[in-house]
C-alpha cells in the first residue's frame, strides 16, 4: 500500500510483475532447500553416486535463482529511480502549493529532511533492501508448502509456525521500538530541561540559583534515571521474544522429526536431511531480523515523505481572474486557525492609491490581516478582495505580481545579498538592483560584508534584524508592484538603521499601501487608520477624526507621544 503510494502512477503496474518475479526467486531458493532431501538421502546411502543428478538439479536451481535475483535487483532499481524522480517533483510541486502559514520552524526542518534526506534514503532502500526482504518474506511459506509434499506432518507444523515466527519478529520489533521511544521521550524531556537551564543561566545565577536539586531540571534528570531503570523490565522480553520463538520452533520441529523417525515414518538419512531443511526454513527469518532496523527506517522515511504530500494544498482556479485597479477590500472576514480565534468579522477597504495604517496592541491580529491579503493563509469566513477579485480566484503568480511585501520576520536564504534581492525580479538589470539597494540603505551592508556576493549566512544570520528588513525593502523596491504590504519592524534598530529604513519607505509614495504601523511618523502620514484590537477593527478613520473622537486610538496616540519624549533619569531626592 505504502509502496504504491510512493510510486508514480505510471510505475505502479510494474509492481505486480516485480512481486511475481520475487515469488519465483523464493520458489527457486525453496527448491534448492528441498532438493537436499533426495540429495542427502542418496549421499547417505551405500552408493552415494546416485546423488550426482540431484546435485545437478541443486546447482541448476541455485544458478537460476542468481540470474533471477540479479534481474530483480535491476527491476527494483528502475522502480526506485522512478520513485525518486517523481517524488522529488511531487514534493516540490506540493510545497509550492501548501499555505505558507503551514511552515513553522518544526515543519520547515521536516520538509527539508523529506526532500534532501528521505527520498535518497528510500531510493537506496529500494535498490539495496527490497529484493532480499521480499524473497525472505516469501521463502519460509514456500519451504513449508514444499514440505507438505515431502513429509506432510512436518510441512503442516512448519506452516503453522510461520505466522508465529513473523508475529514474534514484529512483536519484538514493536516492543523494542516502544521501549526506545519511551526512553527517548524521557531523555528528550531531560535534555530540553538542560537546554532551558543553559539558556536561563543569566537569570538563574542573578537569582543565586546555582544547584539543581529541587528544580524542574533536577526532577527531570531523576525521572530519566528512574524511567531508565523501569524500562529494563520491558527490554528483556523485546530482546528475547524473537530468539526464543526461533529456538522453540527449531526444537519443536526437530522433536517432531524424532517422533516421525521413532514411529518409522522416515528413515535416518531422510530425517537428517529434513533437519537441514528445517534450518533452511528458519534462515530467512534471521535475515529479516537483521534487515528489520533498516526496513523500519525506510518505512519511517516513507511515512514522513507521504505526510508532506498529505498536507492540504491551497485551491487554485482553472482560469485565473484578471486584476483590476489596486484596491483591497475585506468583507466580514474571520480567521481561526486550530480553533483559536485570531480575526473576527473584519471589514474595511483600501482604495487604490491610498495608504491605510493598521494600529493596535500586539497580539491583536494586525500582521494576520496582511498575510490574508497575500493569501499566506485562507480566511475561514468572509471574502478578501484584491484588485477587484477574491484572492482565491487568482492564479497565485498573478496575485503575487500585484504585491510587494515587507514582513516583520525577514528570512533571507543562503547566498549573496544581490541574489537575495534579485529574487524579487530575476530579470532586473544590475543598475536597477543597485538603485533599489541604495534606496533601501543596503549598500552599507554590502560594504560591511565585503561584496554583493558575500554570503549572508543561514537565514541571513550575518545580518542584524534591521539589516535583513532593509534587504527585504530593497526587494520590494525592485519588484515595483502596485500594492505594498508592510509590517514595520519593531526589533532594535539602531539610530542609523532606523533613518535608512524610513528614508527607503518614503519612496513608496504613489502606490496603494497597507501597513502595520508602529512609528508615529508612519501613522501620521496614513490617509486612514484602522485600530485593531483582539481580532476586530474597533475604530477606523483619519488620524484627526480618531483623535477628535477620543476613543482607543486617541489614548494610544497620547501614550505614544509621551513615550517618545521619555528619557532615562534617576530620581534625585
Amino acid at each position: 500500500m505504502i509502496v504504491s503510494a510512493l510510486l508514480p502512477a505510471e510505475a505502479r503496474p510494474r509492481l505486480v510483475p516485480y512481486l511475481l518475479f520475487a515469488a519465483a526467486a523464493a520458489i527457486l531458493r525453496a527448491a534448492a532447500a528441498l532438493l537436499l532431501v533426495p540429495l542427502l538421502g542418496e549421499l547417505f546411502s551405500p552408493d552415494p553416486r546416485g546423488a550426482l543428478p540431484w546435485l545437478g538439479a541443486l546447482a541448476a536451481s541455485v544458478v537460476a535463482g542468481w540470474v533471477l535475483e540479479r534481474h530483480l535487483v535491476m527491476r527494483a532499481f528502475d522502480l526506485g529511480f522512478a520513485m525518486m524522480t517523481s517524488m522529488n517533483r511531487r514534493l516540490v510541486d506540493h510545497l509550492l502549493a501548501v499555505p505558507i502559514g503551514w511552515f513553522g520552524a518544526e515543519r520547515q526542518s521536516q520538509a527539508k529532511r523529506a526532500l534532501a534526506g528521505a527520498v535518497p534514503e528510500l531510493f537506496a532502500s529500494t535498490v539495496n533492501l527490497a529484493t532480499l526482504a521480499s524473497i525472505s518474506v516469501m521463502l519460509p511459506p514456500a519451504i513449508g508448502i514444499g514440505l507438505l509434499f515431502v513429509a506432510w506432518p512436518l510441512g503442516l507444523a512448519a506452516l503453522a509456525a510461520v505466522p508465529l515466527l513473523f508475529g514474534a519478529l514484529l512483536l519484538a520489533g514493536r516492543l523494542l521500538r516502544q521501549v526506545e521511544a519511551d526512553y527517548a521521550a524521557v531523555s528528550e524531556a531531560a535534555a530540553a530541561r538542560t537546554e532551558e537551564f543553559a539558556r536561563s543561566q543569566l537569570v538563574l545565577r542573578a537569582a543565586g540559583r546555582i544547584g539543581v536539586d529541587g528544580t524542574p531540571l533536577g526532577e527531570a534528570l531523576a525521572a530519566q534515571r528512574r524511567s531508565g531503570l523501569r524500562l529494563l523490565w520491558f527490554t528483556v522480553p523485546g530482546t528475547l521474544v524473537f530468539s526464543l520463538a526461533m529456538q522453540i520452533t527449531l526444537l519443536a520441529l526437530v522433536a517432531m522429526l524424532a517422533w516421525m523417525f521413532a514411529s518409522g515414518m522416515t528413515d535416518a538419512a531422510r530425517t537428517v536431511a529434513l533437519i537441514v531443511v528445517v534450518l533452511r526454513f528458519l534462515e530467512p527469518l534471521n535475515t529479516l531480523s537483521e534487515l528489520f532496523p533498516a526496513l523500519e527506517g525506510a518505512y519511517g522515511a516513507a511515512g514522513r515523505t507521504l505526510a508532506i504530500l498529505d498536507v492540504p494544498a491551497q485551491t487554485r482556479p482553472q482560469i485565473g481572474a484578471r486584476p483590476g485597479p489596486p484596491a483591497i477590500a475585506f468583507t466580514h472576514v474571520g480567521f481561526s486557525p486550530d480553533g483559536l480565534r485570531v480575526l473576527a468579522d473584519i471589514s474595511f477597504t483600501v482604495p487604490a492609491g491610498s495608504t491605510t495604517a493598521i494600529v493596535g496592541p500586539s497580539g491583536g491580529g494586525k500582521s494576520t490581516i496582511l498575510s490574508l491579503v497575500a493569501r499566506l493563509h485562507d480566511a475561514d469566513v468572509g471574502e478578501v478582495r484584491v484588485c477587484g477579485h477574491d484572492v482565491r480566484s487568482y492564479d497565485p503568480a498573478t496575485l503575487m505580481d500585484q504585491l510587494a511585501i515587507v514582513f516583520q520576520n525577514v528570512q533571507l536564504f543562503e547566498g549573496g545579498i544581490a541574489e537575495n534581492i534579485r529574487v524579487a525580479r530575476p530579470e532586473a538589470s544590475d543598475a536597477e538592483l543597485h538603485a533599489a539597494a541604495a534606496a533601501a540603505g543596503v549598500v552599507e551592508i554590502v560594504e560591511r560584508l565585503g561584496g554583493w556576493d558575500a554570503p549572508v549566512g543561514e537565514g541571513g544570520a550575518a545580518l542584524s534584524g534591521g539589516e535583513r528588513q532593509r534587504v527585504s525593502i530593497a526587494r520590494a523596491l525592485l519588484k515595483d508592484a502596485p500594492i505594498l504590504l508592510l509590517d514595520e519592524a519593531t526589533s532594535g534598530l539602531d539610530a542609523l538603521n532606523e533613518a535608512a529604513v524610513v528614508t527607503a519607505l518614503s519612496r513608496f509614495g504613489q502606490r496603494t499601501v497597507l501597513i502595520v504601523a508602529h512609528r508615529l511618523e508612519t501613522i501620521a502620514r496614513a490617509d486612514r487608520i484602522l485600530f485593531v484590537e483582539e481580532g476586530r477593527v474597533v475604530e477606523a478613520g483619519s488620524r484627526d477624526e480618531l483623535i477628535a473622537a477620543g476613543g482607543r486610538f486617541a489614548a494610544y496616540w497620547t501614550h505614544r507621544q509621551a513615550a517618545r519624549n521619555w528619557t532615562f533619569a534617576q530620581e534625585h531626592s
Partner: protein
Amino acid sequence: MAGGFQKTMMKAFGATDHLMTVVSVTDITPGFRRIRFSAPTMIDGRETPTASYIRLWAPDPAEPGKVHQRGYTLVEPDATTGEVSFDFVLHEPMGPASGWAAAAKPGDTIAASYYMFHKFDPPEDPEGYLLMGDPAAIPAINAILGVLPPEAQVVVILQAHAPDDALIPIGKHPGAEVIWTGPGTGALAAAVPVRDWSNWYAWCAAENAAIKELRAALNRVHGFPLSDIKHAAYWIRGKAMRLRKETSGRTDEEAVEAAPSASAVPSTAAAPSAAAATRSGPARRPRWRSQGGEELLASLRWKLRAAGLMQALVSLMQLAPLLLIAELGRRLLAGETRWEALAPLIFWAVGLFGAAAMLSAGLMLWLHAVDARFGYTLRLSIVGKLVRLPLGWFSERNAAAVHQAVQEDAGRLHYMVTHAVPDIVAGIVTPLAVILYLFTVDAGLAALLFLPLIAFVALLSHMMRGVADKLAAHAEWTKRATAAASAFIEALPVVRVFGGDGRAVRGVLDGQAAFLNGWQRPMAGRKVASQLAIQPPAFLLLIMAVGCWRVVSGGLAPADLLPFLFLGTAFGTQIMAAMYGFVPMREARQAARRIGKLLEERELDRSLAHRDLPPGPLGLRFDAASFGYRPRRPVLHGIDLLLAPGTLTALVGPSGAGKSTLAGLPGRFHDVTSGAVRIVAGAEEIDIRELKPQALQRAVGFVFQDVRLIQASLRDNIALARPGATMAEIEAAARAAQIHERIQAAPRGYDSVVGEDARLSGGEAQRLSIARALLADPPILVLDEATAFADPESEHLVQKALSALLGQRTVLVVAHRLHTVVQADCIAVMQAGRIVQRGRHAELLARPGLYRDLWQAGGETRKAS
C-alpha cells in the same frame, strides 16, 4: 613518451584517472620546480580543500609500463582554465616522480588520481598549529598558512635535504615561527622544541619512516594525543621501485588516514631528543581538550569488558545446540536408534538454549542498569559544568553544543552501552567459533568456506575501482541537494511571494538523481553479484558440490557434512554483520569526545572569590579593561570608565562597537584579559573577581533584551532572586513595574504558570523582568535600552517601570536611541572596542565627532514626520 603508454595506462587505471598536460615549467629554486598542468577533467570546479592532494602516477624510468604513485599538493587550482600547479623537489638520487619532473617539458603528459582525503580540518580553536615536513610538504604547508587566522600561533619545522632547500619560499604568516633542521630520519622528531603543547594541533607530512618517528615523539615525549596529529607519508625511503598495485592500498590506509591503529607507531621511541626531553620533561602534564572523552569512557571500561566476555559466553551457548543437533544427526546416520543415546543430546540442547536465554536477559538487565547510572552521572556532570562556565559562554553557537551533547551524543552513548558492545562481540565470536569448529571437522572443506568471501572481496574491489572519485562526487551532490533543499524551504515564503517555481532545487535534485542513476545502475548488477556470493545458497551449493565429490571419491564421511550444512551456510552473513557493528561504536566514541570537550571548556575562575559586599552605595570602575573572545584578537581595548555611585552612564555607538560586551563584564559574563573591573565602595575598590559569586550577583543586576522567564508561577518568577520575599513585597514590585493588573487578569493570578495559563507578550515579559529586578534591588544596574521598544504599544508602561527601577542606583545603559539618554550623567561613545568620546549630551553635541553624526542621523528620522 609513447602514445601507446598513455592508452595502456588509462585502460589499466580505469576512468577516474585524469590525464594532465604540462603547460609550463618554472624553477623556483635550483632544487624546487613548479610545473603548471592543464587538467580540465580534474580541475572542473569541484571543491579543492586546503592542502588536498592528488596521486601522481610517475612512469618507471627503467621498466616501461610500470608506474609509481606519489602524493602532490594542488597549488593554485584555477577552475576557469582547468589548470593547476604541482611543486617538485629535485634531489639526487631521484625518485620516479622527481626524475620525471626533471625532464618534463611543455606538452608532456602524466596521469593522476584525485583524492580528497587530505582535508586540512583542525579542531576548533586549537591553542596553536605545529606544522612539520620536508621540502615535499612545503606546498601543503604554504596552503595551510594561507588559511590560518592571522592571530594564530604557528610553529613550522622544516627539514632541509639539501642546502638549497632553505631557499624555497615559505608562506607569510604573522604568527609563524620557522625552524629548519637537517637531513636524517629522526631529525624532524628531534627538532620539536620542548614546551607545553597543550591543545596544539600538529600536522606533518614527510617520508614514511620520519613520520612514524615524529608521531611517536609527539605522542610520547610531547603528550600529543594521536587524534590531534594529522599526518601523511608522501614517499617511502628505499622503496623507489614500487608498483602501483602494491602501494596504493598501503600508503592510503596506513599512512594517510587520520586515525590509524596504535600498532602503526614503533614500539620504541628512537629519537635522540626524545630521551633528552624526557629527562628534562615538561613542567606539567600537558592536556588536550579532545581527550576529555576518553576519561568519560574510562569509568565504563571494565564493565563493558565484562559485558563483552559474558556476551561471548552467551554466543557460544547459543551455538552449542546446533552442534548437538549435528551430533544427533550423526548418531542417527550411524544407525543409532536407542532413545537413551539420543535423549541426552536433546535435553542438553534445550538446557543450553534456556540457559543462554536467561544469561542474555541478565546481561541486558545489567547493562541497562549500568547505562541508567552512567547517563545520570553524565547529565549531572554536564549540568554541573554549565553552572561553572562564564555567562558569556552561553552564545547561540554554544547552545547548539549543549543541545548536541544532551540530546544526541548522550543518546549515542546510551546505544553504545546497551547494544553496541554485545552486538560486536556476538558478531565476532559466532563466526569465529563456527569456523574453528568446522576446521576440526574437516580442514579442507572449512578452508573452502573462505572462497565465497574471497569472491565477495574481489567483486567488491572491482566495483570499488575509481570509487574514490565517485564517492567524492556523491558527497558533493548530497551537500548540494541538502543546501538546495534548505535554501528552497527557507526561501519558500519569498519564492512564493515573488512567484518562483523552485527551478533551482528541481535542477539540483534532478542532477543528483541523474548522477545516482549513472553511477549506481551499472554497479547494481555487480553489487548484487557480490552479495549473492556470501548468501546461504552460495555456501550451500559450495558445500554440497565439494561434499558430494569428496564423499563419492571416499575422502569424506557423509556424516561430516552435517556440521557444515548446519553451521556453515550462514558464515558469510555473520561476517558481514560483524563488520557493520563497528559503526555505532565509532559514533559513540566521537560523541564521547564531543561531550568530553564540553566538560573541558574553560571555567570561570572563582579561586580568588572570597570577599563579601561592603555596605553603602556602590559604583563601578573599568580600569584599562581589555577583552577578546580569542587570544590576540581583542574586542575591547583598555577601557577606562568610572561609574560613580548613583550616576547614570550610557554606552552609545554603532552596532559591533563592543557595547554589549562591555556591559557584560561587571557580571563576569567574561573575565577581562587584562586590566580589571572594580566595585567602588567609598574609598575602597574591590576587583569583582575577588567577590563571592552571591555577593557579585547581589551587587550587579541585569535587565536585558532577551527576557527569560522560567517555567514556574508568575510569583516565583518575580521572586526568583529572593525566594523568601513576602506576597506584599512581590505585589509592590509588580505594581511598580506596571504588571500587577495584567497578572491579576491571568486565570490564576500570581499562581498562573508561565507557558501554561500565563502567556505574556514581549512588553509584559519585560515588565515582569523589571519587577524581578526591583525585588532583587541591586545597587548597580546594567540594562539594555532596546527593552523599552521591543513592544511599542506598551512602551509607555515599560518606560514607567524602568523609571521606577532606576531609583537612585548606579546605572549603565546600552542605548540605541540617543534621545533616551540625553539626561545621562555621562555618555560614553564607543567605536571598534574603544571609547572615542565621553561627556554630557550638550558637550558632545557641541563638538564635531561620532556622537554628533549619530545624533543628526537619528534626528532626521524625527524631522521626517
